[in-house]
């Protein structure tokens, strides 16, 4: 049953040939990354008749995309209902029904980040260790600059080795300033950066923070303090508090969201590393139980590898039948 995991059968080459416009190339990258799910789904649907076995295969595919037991069962129950009620016959019809449900589930999360209305617009990033916060800031700086906005970065990770140097390098790549301190207080760095941004008439300030696990309670308190101090520096801020989730993460993503939401009030999500084989299906579970706008997805380590989340494109990429592995039986 693992035949579709074999490299030769996945369209990995689409990664290396991004010929179209950036957007299309993102889609192909995302598709390449999601290829394993896609091809397995492809083989699930195809021309088969709908039967219990098909539904079971479908359940397996959703589970393996990290959708979680609960979300998977709900989706499946819904499909089962449609199968009987709408008298669906072919796998392809079932695919369309699933796509429809997923899109319906995920569309509410599709709310682009609009940074008008405040100057400076203050964005704070949070997340567990290694999720991709600092890299996402580097990409976001490019994103906002391409909209003609000026950007300033705050090196709020005063803990991890070379975290500051890493952000400074992203600053250099974007040709934007990074506010850092020798001292160890992240809140003070954020405060300084906001003052500097006001003095310099900067449009967007992004505050990096150290990675932390929700079990480290004192660190959760620390990040709550960063938020409070930001508010002290600018009473209307922070205007966006992003939680960065690693696309590889399993069901723990929900616990992360709850904990960070409680500590700092999450207003948006970024899911990174969707260029890999992980599918980030936990977003389905999030959409069901703890919905937050999914602002961007990360699809690589490069400065351009960040895209606004589009529910239909995502579901398309996830369910694309394509021409790969479709003939393969699961």
């Amino acid at each position, binding site marked *: 049953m693992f035949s579709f*995991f074999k490299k030769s059968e996945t369209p990995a080459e689409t990664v290396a040939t991004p010929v179209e416009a950036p957007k299309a190339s993102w889609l192909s990258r995302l598709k390449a990354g999601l290829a394993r799910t896609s091809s397995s789904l492809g083989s699930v649907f195809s021309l088969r008749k709908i039967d219990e076995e098909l539904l079971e295969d479908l359940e397996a595919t959703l*589970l393996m995309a990290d959708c979680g037991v609960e979300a998977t069962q709900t989706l499946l129950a819904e499909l089962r209902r449609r199968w009987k009620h709408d008298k669906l016959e072919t796998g392809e019809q079932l695919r369309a029904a699933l796509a429809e449900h997923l899109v319906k589930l995920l569309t509410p999360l599709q709310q682009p980040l609009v940074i008008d209305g405040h100057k400076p617009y203050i964005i704070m990033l949070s997340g567990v260790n290694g999720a991709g916060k600092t890299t996402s800031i580097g990409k976001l700086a490019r994103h906002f600059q391409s909209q003609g906005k000026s950007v300033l970065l705050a090196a709020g990770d005063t803990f991890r080795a070379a975290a500051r140097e*890493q952000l400074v390098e992203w600053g250099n*790549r974007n040709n934007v300033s990074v506010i850092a301190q020798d001292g160890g207080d992240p809140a003070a760095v954020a405060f300084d950066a906001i003052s500097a941004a006001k003095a310099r008439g900067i449009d967007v300030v992004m505050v990096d923070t150290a990675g932390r696990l929700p*079990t480290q309670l*004192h660190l959760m308190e620390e990040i709550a303090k960063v938020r409070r101090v930001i508010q002290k520096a600018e009473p209307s801020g922070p205007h966006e508090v992003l939680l960065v989730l690693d696309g*590889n993460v399993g069901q723990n993503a929900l616990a992360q969201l709850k904990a960070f939401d409680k500590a700092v009030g999450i207003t948006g999500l970024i899911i990174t590393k969707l260029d890999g084989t992980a599918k980030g299906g936990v977003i389905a579970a999030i959409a069901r139980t703890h919905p937050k706008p999914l602002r961007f997805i990360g699809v690589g380590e490069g400065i351009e590898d960040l895209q606004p989340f589009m529910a239909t494109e995502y579901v398309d990429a996830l369910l694309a039948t394509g021409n790969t592995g479709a003939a393969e039986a699961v």
Partner: protein
Amino acid sequence: MLDNLTNRLAQVVKTLRGQARLTEDNIADMLREVRMALLEADVALPVVKDLMVRIKEKALGQEVVGSLTPGQALVGVVQQELALIMGGSQASLNFATQPPAIILMAGLQGAGKTTTVGKLAKYLKEKQRKKVLTVSCDVYRPAAIAQLQAVSAQAGAEFFPSSADQKPVDIALAAIDYAKRHYLDVLLVDTAGRITIDEQMMDEIRQLHAAIKPIETLFVVDAMLGQDAVNTARAFNEALPLTGVVLTKLDGDSRGGAALSVRHVTGAPIKFTGVGEKLGGLDEFHPERMASRILGMGDILSLVEEARAAVDEKAALDLAEKLRKGKGFDLNDFKEQMGQMRKMGGLSGLMDKMPAQFAQAAAQMQPGAPEKAMARVEGIINSMTPAERSNPDLIKAARKRRIAAGAGVQVQEVNRLLNQFEQMQKMMKQFSKGGIGKLMRGLGGLKGMKGMMPGG
């Protein structure tokens, strides 16, 4: 988080009480619960399927002995099976080679490779008296080399400089040469994170491996990983002959099912676990504990160990000494204990690791309630004078009112605290008599706290 397997099975098997044997009939529903529990713990589906066959085979015909319920009997079987799969083979590092013993790190982006190099360097240097050299072949991630340099310095290990314009193979070979000339025992080779469908990057590490022929190739995996752990592990295992796995970020509250997936797919033993960002946070792997954790059944043993690790050694020794001398455990100590608890990640974090009985009590609490309760208790103690803290008997009605006003609570709450403290003091005395001061210093505060929580 609290829907641990024992409880869930208890629900299913209520009707089965009194049955003496696990049979096809009576375990079908229970097996379904086991399957769900494994999936919720992020064990990858193909691995779950495989496991279910083995578990069923082992469970059928199993006798339900003594006071056990069929559910408990099945849990026993499941737990044993998981531990068996994750344990087994030799888990220490292999140094049987002409020095330097080369250790190559590999894994996804952000898994914890660089940090683990620092942890290993410290461990090898301090515990095994090895002379360690580190080198970074990560020429991609911004400041990756600076990061390794910094953690190497923290670990007290020698660091071989490299730069982003060099080729990984050249860097590693130069480091080996240096290590040989300076008679160093171990060379730790850090690499860039990579996704498995990036053929170029997978080729790069394949070539690096071929060029340096490491005696250990460690696959570094984040314990929070989801279902894709099987694909990732398979791809790394196909590209490189993995000799071991390091499971990082176990200090979080993920159930860690990836441990099972990775072990199942690669067959490589889990040699270490990472807990915390500090370089001291490298532990041995305990299969039984991991099995309980995956099943959501708490893990009192790690709890004790964690308590030990987080508790300030000196403060703990002072306290032990105090108790040994028969001097009382006072409210100052109590307050100290609470500070220690906070260091351990707070009560909510601990709850996840507790066995069913505790977790059930905790389930009735609001999220964050224990922390709030703790803050209140601290507020009360803070309102006391040092004299009152070391001699709580002083605290009579007038003082109680003052303390309550100072902490912004009702007098009853002060009373409750004093009562609970008294009980705890008694318990402490018993413990110290019984000579389990060691256990006490981690858990004493905790037990005392338990009574203090609403519903606990």
